């Protein structure tokens, strides 16, 4: 019997995500992939999937899905209510759905993005080796819509019991470590200090492309145009407004504004869970 999850309510934005499609940046293709990768990996582990199986990534408002057959799911990431046909279920545990049951992930209580894994993985077709939706370039499947039927693969592993890993609770105030450069010399001497001594607020304009921040302006010392250059995940770019943004997985492959620093990879998943208004501080770290 065909294994399907039918979308009853996609919430504000729910996309299919896996580990993305790195390796195509020279053609202008963003890397994409789950923003909170540890949460996506945990969800996959809980249902017995390999790490690269595709999951669903919700944004603030959750998602509601109908299972065509019995299947095992797990919800991780943001702190959000999980129900099956209205009855409460635990976060970060395998949840058995019977045929015809509805899984609902509610609005997040803290954090922004929930991850829903299903045993067998979301089996939409791949594009350039990945099932991830890239909101910048439009590569990959469209965001979920009401009534859409998502194919689900055959399970390959056995669902785990409760995972030993502790689920970190998203926090409304975080400190992101960063390494200065490559264009720190395009800013005035106090700009780095401003960045490390100030609190920035998460802007509601933030999305999978970037975490946009508002706070004290970072002043440039060189006003001229920077020829476009390659960008990396976690780059802290400062556009004309002087307000920094941290590039996330759907970032453009090149950009023409100077990058003041790069957030360390370990601190990027927390960026995925910041809600509008949440506070961000930056701490400079230098290579050993």
């Amino acid at each position, binding site marked *: 019997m065909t294994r399907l999850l039918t979308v009853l309510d996609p919430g504000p934005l729910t996309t299919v995500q896996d580990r993305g499609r790195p390796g195509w940046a020279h053609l202008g*293709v963003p890397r994409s992939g789950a923003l909170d990768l540890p949460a996506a990996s945990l969800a996959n582990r809980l249902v017995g999937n390999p790490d690269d199986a595709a999951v669903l990534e919700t944004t603030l408002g959750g998602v509601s899905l109908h299972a065509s057959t019995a299947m095992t799911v797990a919800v991780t990431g943001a702190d959000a209510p999980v129900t099956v046909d209205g009855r409460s279920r635990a976060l970060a545990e395998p949840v058995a759905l019977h045929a015809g049951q509805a899984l609902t992930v509610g609005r997040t209580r803290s954090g922004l993005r929930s991850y829903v894994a299903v045993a067998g993985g979301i089996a939409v077709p791949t594009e350039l080796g990945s099932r991830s939706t890239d909101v910048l370039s439009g590569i990959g499947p469209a965001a979920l819509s009401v009534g859409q039927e998502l194919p689900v693969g055959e399970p390959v592993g056995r669902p785990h019991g409760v995972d030993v890993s502790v689920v970190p609770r998203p926090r409304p105030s975080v400190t992101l470590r960063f390494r200065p450069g*490559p264009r720190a010399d395009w800013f005035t001497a106090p700009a780095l200090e401003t960045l490390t001594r100030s609190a920035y607020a998460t802007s509601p304009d933030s999305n999978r492309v970037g975490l946009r921040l508002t706070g004290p302006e970072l002043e440039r010392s060189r006003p001229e145009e920077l*020829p*476009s250059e*390659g960008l990396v995940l976690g780059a802290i770019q400062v556009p004309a407004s002087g307000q920094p943004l941290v590039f996330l997985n759907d970032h453009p492959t090149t950009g023409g504004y100077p990058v003041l620093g*790069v957030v360390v990879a370990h601190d990027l998943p927390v960026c995925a869970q910041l809600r509008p208004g949440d506070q961000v501080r930056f701490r400079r770290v230098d290579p050993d």
Partner: protein
Amino acid sequence: MRCIPVGEDAVLVEVDDTAQASALYAEARRRGTEAVDIVPAARTVLFRGVPDVAALTGELLGWSLPEGDVASGPLVEVPTRYDGPDLAAVARLWDMTEREAIGTHTATDMLVAFCGFAPGFAYCTGLPAERAVPRLDTPRTRVPAGSVGLAGAFTGVYPTASPGGWQLLGRTGLTLWDASRDQPATLAPGTRVRFVEVHG
């Protein structure tokens, strides 16, 4: 050549001009340099997902890049109907007739220096600096797929419809992007390009 570390696993290599960036990118591909992504741009090449940044930096500084013409990639002819809305404006900027402007564009050997802006959007070099044109003051909200345009001395071809501020010379029917192909971009960095005038 200047190597600037970027984050934990990347290095941005700055060179003097776009020709050098193209040469460095070609050399890195020829050598099979280990990196998840190698991203050429106007005056830089980014190596990202590098196993040992210090080792790569040391190696890069020992490379000697070929001078002059580095174009050795495949040649793609782009059949182009020169009926774009900005052809007359570009001809005026170049102080020529439209026919002469078309002749100048089709007579130029071009090279895809880098992609950006959108998947498969190629920045082709070849026109001399004195042929540089400004971008439109107000970008168009929709530029059709296949549009051939100029910005600065770069020629670009829009692989898909999108907003854009390039001055449009014409359009090609060539498929520029197909994700189902092994090589999805028709105009990948290192590709040599000739624009060929077609009618109708």
